[in-house]
């Protein structure tokens, strides 16, 4: 109470951004103390998306744990399963076939594309540039349709399994991937041009949310946030895994150290991802797509890491020789990027707060990973047709008949 009186006497206002706010895509609480329009102090509180994933993995076997790990996050689900499968394969001593590495690589780069396009749209929305938001999300649909054809679902595509991948890529699908790459490349070049020349965009993004290379070192930032400060850190180059043992990646860095730099890094990374996809599709070898994986892991512990769209993702597995993991620990990239958040917010204006928060590309679900898995109520399995029928019923009861809408088959 005295804090509030103090604030009132100094004409300071505490604006609560979150846990529920139009600018936040997931809940998180930022209490911003304002002096006029300037942010004086920012208290960051996260943990609203905690789901108990690590505990849940301990009471399930490895196959079930993989499903849970996939759902740590919707946008970077492939990166999480890849990291987890890699950890399992390292401990079990499995040699994954080359074709599986390539398929994993292609899906991983497609995921990077759709994640960065999503980010671009969200960032545009935060600064009020709705037109760019609509354009990037329209382009993202191309990638999501491809991913749905590959894996069967637009998010959580379930392509990875222990020992390789579960689905193969047919030649027409690969032709379509190349076609989408061509379409996207044009559009991305347009966005890159836009980022470099559109005055209002530059005015809003430049000079805010500054994180110097020293700050990056102090707060252990990873991913595009670190690369925008000129630091060349990319797991695909530092510790090449899978297909990146054969294909070299150009690490994209920028020197702006601010939100504008992060935008440029992500746009250029998208162009780099397209280049990598083209190489992978051209060079993909024939062969099996998986090897048999054991049910039990030998005793031991393993650390594995991959380059998720948001940065470095680390998984830890400890096994006591059974078919259930003893301890699973996930360090999602956003977790590393949170530490500098208060530092990045202070000193800038209220109008910059949403875009600074959005610029680290926060994935609160990846960070928190613990909710109550409650199961009171009906537990039943419904398939796609039943769910659709249920929802049509719902709408009919409100007087709208969507039954005539055709659903596209995958």
């Amino acid at each position, binding site marked *: 109470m005295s804090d509030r009186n103090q604030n009132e006497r100094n004409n300071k*206002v*505490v*604006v*609560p951004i979150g846990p529920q*706010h*139009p*600018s936040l895509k997931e809940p998180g609480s930022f209490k911003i103390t*304002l002096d006029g*329009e300037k942010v004086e102090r920012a208290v960051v509180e996260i943990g609203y998306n905690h789901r108990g994933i690590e505990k849940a993995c301990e009471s399930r076997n490895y196959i079930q744990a993989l499903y849970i790990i996939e759902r740590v996050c919707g946008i970077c689900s492939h990166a999480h399963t890849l990291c987890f499968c890699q950890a399992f394969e390292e401990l079990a001593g499995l040699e994954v076939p080359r074709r599986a590495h390539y398929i994993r690589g292609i899906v991983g780069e497609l995921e990077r594309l759709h994640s960065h396009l999503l980010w671009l749209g969200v960032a*545009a*929305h*935060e*600064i*009020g*540039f*709705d*037109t*760019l938001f*609509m*354009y990037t999300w*329209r382009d993202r649909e191309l990638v999501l349709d491809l991913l749905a054809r590959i894996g069967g679902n637009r998010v959580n595509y379930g392509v990875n399994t222990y020992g390789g991948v579960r689905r193969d890529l047919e030649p027409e699908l690969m032709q379509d991937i190349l076609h989408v790459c061509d379409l996207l490349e044009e559009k991305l070049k347009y966005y890159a041009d836009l980022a470099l020349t*559109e005055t*209002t*965009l530059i*005015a*809003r993004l430049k000079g805010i949310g500054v994180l110097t290379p020293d700050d990056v070192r102090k707060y252990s930032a990873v991913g595009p946030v670190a690369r925008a400060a000129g630091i060349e850190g990319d797991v695909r180059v530092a510790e090449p895994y899978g297909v990146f043992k054969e294909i070299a990646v150009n690490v994209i860095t920028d020197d702006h150290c601010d939100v504008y730099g992060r935008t440029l890094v992500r746009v250029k990374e998208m162009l780099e991802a397209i280049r990598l996809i083209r190489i992978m599709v051209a060079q993909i070898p024939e062969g099996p797509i998986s090897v048999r994986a054991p049910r039990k892991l030998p005793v031991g512990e393993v650390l594995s890491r991959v380059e998720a769209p948001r940065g470095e993702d680390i998984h830890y597995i400890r096994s006591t020789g059974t078919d259930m993991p003893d301890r699973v620990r996930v360090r999602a990239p956003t977790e590393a990027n949170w530490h500098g958040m208060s530092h990045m917010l202070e000193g800038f*204006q*209220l*109008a*910059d*707060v*949403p875009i600074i928060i959005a610029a680290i590309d926060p994935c609160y679900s990846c960070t928190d990973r613990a909710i109550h898995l409650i199961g009171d109520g009906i537990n039943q399995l419904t398939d796609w047709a039943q769910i659709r029928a249920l929802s049509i019923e719902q709408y009919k009861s409100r007087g709208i008949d969507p039954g005539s809408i055709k659903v596209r088959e995958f």
Partner: protein
Amino acid sequence: MLLSIFNVLVFPGLLFLGAYSFVLEFVDRKVYARMQSRKGPPWYQPLADMLKLIGKKVIVPRNAQKFLFAALPTVSLAAVCAAFLCVPVWGATAVTAYQGDLVAVLYLLTIPTLCHFLAGYNSHEVYSTIGAFRTLTQMFAYEVPLFMAFLSPAILAGTWSISGIAAFYAVHPLYTLINLPVFIVSLLTSQSKLERMPFDAPEAETEIVGGALVEYSGRYLAYFRGTAIAELTAIASVLAALYLPFFTGIAWLDFVLYLAKTFVIVLMMVLLRATMARIRIDQTLKFFWSILTPIAMLQMIVNLLLRGGLGL
């Protein structure tokens, strides 16, 4: 007498203003959507929104003054309707035209902004207070260039009546070209007055949720929304009268021309809205004071000299 009542209430008064505002609002939203490669709303959407809002429950915050809460939307809507009566809709005649009605219209159009500010301040809530203060700050930014820009054609025309100005430029159409720079200034300041992108910091959805009107709901919000779209119509009409004066002398043809001219102005505003990001309030202030105000001032001086020089 009966004709006057008809003029005030139906055409081109309240009823026409209401109907045409819905049309322009629809044009605004549809073109904006098409520019974003979306489908956009159907033609009856603004009307449907208004009717829906009127039917919703009104919740008054505990700390707000009830009378002020209820009166502000009504007053601002009334002010805009009064302003519209001075605008020429067919040819160069308006419902009421008198010397100085340009200034009167501009003052009447300031009332909605003040009501907006008071509404936000009255709600006593963090987001609405910030939105209210931003509205006022933005007013300090655009008010000077707005007045200078709108008064420049008047100086050249030598009359302070909108209808008079329209008539003057109808006779000397080439002089409109002299006003081109200040036409652009007027467009930008009008965009700021209407709190549309890129100047909608007072209503920034991703920062302060809804700005000054965050606590408003039900029919009061409907009146404020109505004010916004009526203001769009009024300002578009004033701009059309001041800067696009082509008349044929035939009443109904002039009316069609009026519709076309306001349509063009709204299209230009939508283009501004769709192609830019929202700029911060301090950047707005800097932009208006350092770039637009000097242009408007220069134009005023030029027009003054020309008026004397051309001996009009």
